């Protein structure tokens, strides 16, 4: 092992020389672009060429620090952030040969992160954050960096939100999640778990500003006949149980999934992982229309998930109160486009057929079940003065790194608000 390779290892980790060589080689391919497009396409605005340059020089501690400064959820994003839609998709090097594998370099740097000293709040202002997910955690840490104390309310017993409740374990381990949670705890942030806030405005008694970041928890209903059967499960329920490993009932079962997005692929791969005998994902359009990440498709195909394209569910078949199958119909794509720009599917009459199934999991999206009477604005304020918002609750289903961006930006907005109010 040479000097630079030695310098790259700050923490004991399962790394061999081949890994270190790869990291140095990949880092050396970075062009260090001016106004780097990778960074411009990172919602957390991680200074990507800077951290890569530090990796290349063996200055791994600094590489980890600048990633962490930009993204308080550095470990989680290093594991699951879809680089193919963000940083890496815009890498200039891709115009020469291959884009830099930025997320993997980020993940390595973060894995070697050193000790981070605690920060304590110095301001009298107090902010309440509703929801301990990525947006809430990012907001709380950025407020703490500015000396503002916050209390994070979380209705469940767990800190972390979507990453720790519904992303499959095979994609994101508890170990990785805890790195980020431990990081936020260094800021002296107070967590009040198992606490649901029904009326955010009541918090004004104790707090100067409030940040709503509850995420989405209400499944979109499919309107498919017989969807009230107990063997028809919403995706979020399934994923939460799967993450907690309480999911014996799926073993050796035939599972049909209704969906087509990333969450449906998570559900499908997870069902196979938990012992389903077969998993068929119904999608009413073709592979080209699927708005999913390659990593999600790979994870599903690796687990022998079958995707039935151009197939729409018509009704769930019930016998003696139990689900026995899904009646489907073949579809074709018309020339008409929907609002997403994709060709609209239409059913082909007379092509009905039945897929036998023991369990159906519906994964067609999530809505908010929280305080819809409050309106969120793009500048992170809301229709109520002093209440701010971000993440999926404010903007609809997005990625973790976008929630981080919202948390960071909302923290800025809250600071400005407190400054103007002279609190």
């Amino acid at each position: 092992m040479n000097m630079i390779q030695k310098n790259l290892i700050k923490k004991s980790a399962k790394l061999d020389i081949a890994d270190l060589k790869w990291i140095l080689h990949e880092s050396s391919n970075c062009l260090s672009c001016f106004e780097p497009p990778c960074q411009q396409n990172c919602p957390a605005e991680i200074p990507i060429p800077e951290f890569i340059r530090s990796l290349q020089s063996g200055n791994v501690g600094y590489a980890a620090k600048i990633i962490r400064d930009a993204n308080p959820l550095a470990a989680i994003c290093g594991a699951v952030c879809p680089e193919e839609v963000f940083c890496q998709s815009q890498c200039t090097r891709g115009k020469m040969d291959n884009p830099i594998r930025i997320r993997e370099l980020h993940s390595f740097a973060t894995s070697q992160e050193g000790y981070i000293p605690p920060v304590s709040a110095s301001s009298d202002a107090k902010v309440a954050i509703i929801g301990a997910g990525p947006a809430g955690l990012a907001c709380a840490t950025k407020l703490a960096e500015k000396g503002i104390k916050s209390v994070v309310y979380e209705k469940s017993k767990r800190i972390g939100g979507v990453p720790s409740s519904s992303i499959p374990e095979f994609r994101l381990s508890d170990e990785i999640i805890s790195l980020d949670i431990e990081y936020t705890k260094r800021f002296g942030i107070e967590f009040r778990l198992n606490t649901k806030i029904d009326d955010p405005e009541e918090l004004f008694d104790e707090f100067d500003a409030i940040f709503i970041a509850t995420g989405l928890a209400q499944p979109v209903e499919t309107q498919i006949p017989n969807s009230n059967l107990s063997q028809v499960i919403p995706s979020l329920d399934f994923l939460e149980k799967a993450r907690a490993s309480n999911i014996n009932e799926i073993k050796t079962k035939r599972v049909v999934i209704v969906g087509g997005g990333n969450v449906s692929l998570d559900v499908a791969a997870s069902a196979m992982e938990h012992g389903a005998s077969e998993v068929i994902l119904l999608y009413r359009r073709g592979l080209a229309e699927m708005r999913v990440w390659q990593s999600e498709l790979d994870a599903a195909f690796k687990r022998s998930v079958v995707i039935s394209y151009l197939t729409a569910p018509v009704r769930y078949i019930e016998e003696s109160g139990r689900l026995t199958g899904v009646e489907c119909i073949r579809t074709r794509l018309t020339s008409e486009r929907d609002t997403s720009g994709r060709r609209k599917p239409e059913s082909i009459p007379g092509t009905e057929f039945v897929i036998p199934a023991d369990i159906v999991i519906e994964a067609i999206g999530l809505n908010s079940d929280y305080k819809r009477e409050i309106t969120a604005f793009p500048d992170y304020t809301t229709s109520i003065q002093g209440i701010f918002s971000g993440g999926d609750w404010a903007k609809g289903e997005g990625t973790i790194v976008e929630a981080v961006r919202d948390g960071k930006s909302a923290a800025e907005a809250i600071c400005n608000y407190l400054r103007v109010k002279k609190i």
Partner: protein
Amino acid sequence: MILSSSRLRSRFLGVELENPFILSAGPSTDELDITRAGLDAGWAGVILKTTSLPTTDVDLVYPMMSSFNNGDDILGMGNIDLISIYHLEEIVKRISILKSEYPGKMIAASIMSDSREGWQTLVRALKDADVDLIECSFSCPQGNVGEDPGKMLAQSVSATEKVAGWVKEAAEELPVLIKITPQVTDIVAIAGAILKSKCDGITASNSIPALMGIDIDSLTPIPQVDGYSTYSGLSGGAIKPITLRTIAEISRNFTDATISGNGGISNWRDSVEVLAVGASNIQICTAVMLHGFGIIEDLTSGLDNYLIEKGFNSVTELVGKALPKLVSHEQLPRHQVRSAVIKEKCIGCGRCYISCRDGGHIAIKWDSVNRLPDIDEEKCVGCGLCLLVQPVDGCLSLKRVD
């Protein structure tokens, strides 16, 4: 497998060479069997590692090899080796053996001594063994055991002329090469001294005294010998530009000088360059130590293909071909040149913008929206820095504007 061809053959100081590639004095020519393997592989000749009289104490230390790298690539190799542990008697024996086993090859010896008597004893014994050529090491970077301790012989013009004269006096018709160091104030003066001495040619040039690095963990210089270190002789690709300058400078000043090229030549392309500035043939050591004798096939076939492609009938025709275009700085033509962005090839990295902004003339404008650099013709002086950092060939060019 080319190894030899009518184009590659040449005569060097009366010795026939089947191709211009010779194994230089070093580890690859220090054991009889290794030397044989090199000749069997197709090398045109060998210069056995520098020998001495039995009175010379060769006190080696280990480890002796080090390198400095960029990633996995060795840019330069360093050694703290000394001359051969085999003294004159053994080398004389080997010369006879190799001469009889390899009649078509050049079998040469390298020598080093510290007195007129010593140099001349070495020469006479080797001459009796019918050696093809003698090379004198005036430039071992690990120190000279000669006239002026602590200084290489070839760093002194007068010592060079005097000692080279002694050698030639004893060698008579036997051709003598003097191996010099590039680390001198005036290489022309040294070369002049050698020509004056009537020696037949110059080997330009030896490895260069260098400190290979410092282990920043222990703050110990490299290579480490029980916690201590010393200066190494730097060789390999890193020194090729110095070798080229040394040979070119001698050739420009002495058109009749005979030069054997040595120092940092790693492949046939390097050898074309060294021949083009005036060397008659090529000596290689480091590249063989790193990659083995087998590189001779690529060296010979690469050079032969190059000669065919460029219409040269023999390697001799290539010698010095680049020299007419080498002039002094004040003789260079003064034209106005400007950079130009070739938009179709630009990938929008902005490296040219950064380099010009921070190390040039702030002569590149940047269009953030389209990620496109644009040359400010008023400010651009045509320094060419932007072309050095271009990631794709041809995204920038220099054009004459006067």
